[in-house]
């Protein structure tokens, strides 16, 4: 028996025993888990929406450790799942390794980047969304000290912080932005206790609005901010409802749209690059009934004006990852 046959045979056996049809889409959640109320959950929501609308099924796994990434990719690709959607930047290196082995499968990254020809790289313009968050935060602040709490200290998270600081300083040039990172390893995404401690530390420095770009750690930031009576800004998913009236807004990254669209296109999905920026509704501020009382008309007007200018190219928000530096804040 040739290798190809045995591979196909194995794949077919697995598909049968699992009761899954070939060419179902598959989604791989990163270490935070699919109910992190943030990045991964946004992906989960997109997949759920697709499943409800089409009545079809998809494959999913929440990986438990760094070493499982490659196995999950291979396993899904081998059963014929298409497309295989990944969440998180850490999938980049495993995709470089595995995507070329399965040229007929389309892989999708969210935050990650792979140069393999069968990968659709989804990149979000977090700096633009964070800029808008910065505008609203600066206008809501009375102390003119704004806080930023990042998860793992990586260029991606500095990109959030840098955009935020630019938005703050464009609105209130005299304001001060203080920044802290939770850690240097992936555990920093899931450490709400430390998030709470950092929030208290920033409050003691005078901060009265704090933006958390920290995955599960951000839940601790939002909780502590609500307990201490200051405002917070959520991230990735709409987190306004977590503490109604205490969360100023959320910088929503439409991972759900990215996942939903990829699943909708299914096998016809084209590899390449998909930019999810303000112009493509890839990032946005969440406005709903939970923060309606906090957002004034001036804030809305300022956000709309900035959005229009960014889309028109009149304002360029500096992207930290473009040159690994930020003109307005030191991390």
């Amino acid at each position, binding site marked *: 028996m040739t290798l190809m046959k045995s591979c196909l045979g194995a794949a077919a056996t*697995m598909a049968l*025993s699992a009761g899954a049809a070939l060419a179902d889409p598959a989604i791989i959640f990163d270490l935070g888990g699919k109910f992190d109320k943030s990045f991964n959950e946004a992906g989960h929501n997109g997949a759920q929406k697709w499943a409800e609308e089409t009545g079809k099924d998809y494959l999913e796994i929440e990986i438990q450790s*760094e070493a499982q990434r490659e*196995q999950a990719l*291979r396993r899904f690709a*081998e059963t014929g799942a298409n497309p295989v959607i990944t969440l998180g*930047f*850490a999938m980049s290196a495993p995709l470089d390794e595995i995507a070329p082995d399965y040229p007929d499968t389309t892989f999708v990254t969210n935050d990650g980047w792979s140069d393999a020809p069968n990968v659709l790289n989804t990149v979000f313009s977090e700096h633009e969304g964070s800029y808008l968050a910065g505008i609203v935060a600066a206008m809501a602040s009375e102390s003119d000290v704004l806080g930023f709490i990042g998860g793992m200290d990586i*260029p991606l998270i500095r990109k959030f912080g840098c955009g935020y600081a630019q938005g703050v300083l464009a609105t209130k040039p005299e304001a001060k932005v203080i920044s802290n990172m939770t850690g240097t*390893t992936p555990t920093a995404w899931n450490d709400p206790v430390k998030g709470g401690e950092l929030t208290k530390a920033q409050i003691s420095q005078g901060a009265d609005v704090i933006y958390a770009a920290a995955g599960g750690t951000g839940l601790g930031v939002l909780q502590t901010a609500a307990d201490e009576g200051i405002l917070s800004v959520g991230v990735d998913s709409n987190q306004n409802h977590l503490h109604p009236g205490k969360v100023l807004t959320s910088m929503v990254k439409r991972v759900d749209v990215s996942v939903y669209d990829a699943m909708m296109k299914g096998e016809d999905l084209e590899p390449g690059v998909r930019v999810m920026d303000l112009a493509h509704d890839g990032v946005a501020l969440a406005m709903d009934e939970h923060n309606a009382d906090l957002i004034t008309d001036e804030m809305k007007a300022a956000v709309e004006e900035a959005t229009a200018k960014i889309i028109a190219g009149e304002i360029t928000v500096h992207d930290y990852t473009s040159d690994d530096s930020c003109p307005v804040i030191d991390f």
Partner: protein
Amino acid sequence: MDKMPKWADVALIPFLNLLIAFVLSGLVILAIGENPIKALQMMISGALGSSYGWGYTLYYATNFIFTGLAVSIAFKAAMFNIGGEGQAMIGGLGVALVCLYIPFPHWSVALLVAMAGGAIFGAAWAIIPAYLQARRGSHVVITTIMFNFIAASVLNYMLVNVLRVKGSMDPASGRFPETTHLPTLHDILAPLGISFSRAAPVNVSLFIALIACVVVYLLLWRSRLGYEIRAFGLSPDASVYAGISPFKIIMIAMILSGGLSGMMSINNTMGEAERLVLNSVEGAGFIGIAVALMGRNHPFGVLLAALLFGFLYQGGSELSLWTKIPRELVIVIQALVILFTGALDNMVRGPVERIFINYAKRRAG
């Protein structure tokens, strides 16, 4: 007759333990509304039903053979080495440094040097708790556990600040060069005309692990040093009276133990990932304790127990891939097996032993 036959001790009791664990796991799966029979079928077909499944099962088993032997050898010297996890992490660092910074002409040379690198780093990590035990009486269980945390922090530091590729967000080392890539079972079997899944990570380290089983057996039961280790483990006071140095035995047993744990990294770091990632050990250091307990600290038993846990690991990951059984529950199933085969061993052993003895008495009249 005051004890049960050997076959009952080595086969019947582990089997009963396993059965209880599986029945309980089945009940847990039933409680969350899934079908336990189907789950078991999926585990078996996923782990043993294809050369792909075997490839992963054997890959995990290779890890567990190394760490199981490591725990066994220390246990024979009455040292309970809980630090396999940390020793394997540091061993991984050793393997990664060797692979990244020494240019090798061929994988076979690279493998030998990486084995030495992993073993030396792992052994070095075990020496400190060993010395503290031998000279200062600090309990080795406590110190080795604490050293796991230090190892994790050291690895964090090295990956974030030293080994991380510039511009990469992932705390992981760069890829090892092509010449250090180990041949997988697919590469080894292909010239013989046997087709084996190309995707499975099982590699030449499996044979090193099997050789390690034989070497450990010869060392413990066919050498003077092994006799001293076993004598010391059975009765430290008597062995001192017989002229065996406790310091020497503790140090040697722990060095061998740490070295074996560290050598595990030729499988996961060099053979599979081909780069050093955080958490590459995946709990194999702790599973090694269960493997050693279940394998009665005998290399052949360790081999069988490692295969079982390899099956559980691979079958478990198949479960989380193809069913909606949450990942926490897969860990619960694995934990139940560990609990019953390792910790609650005596719960089954007592009654079974009594049955055998009563039966023997009645027959003797």
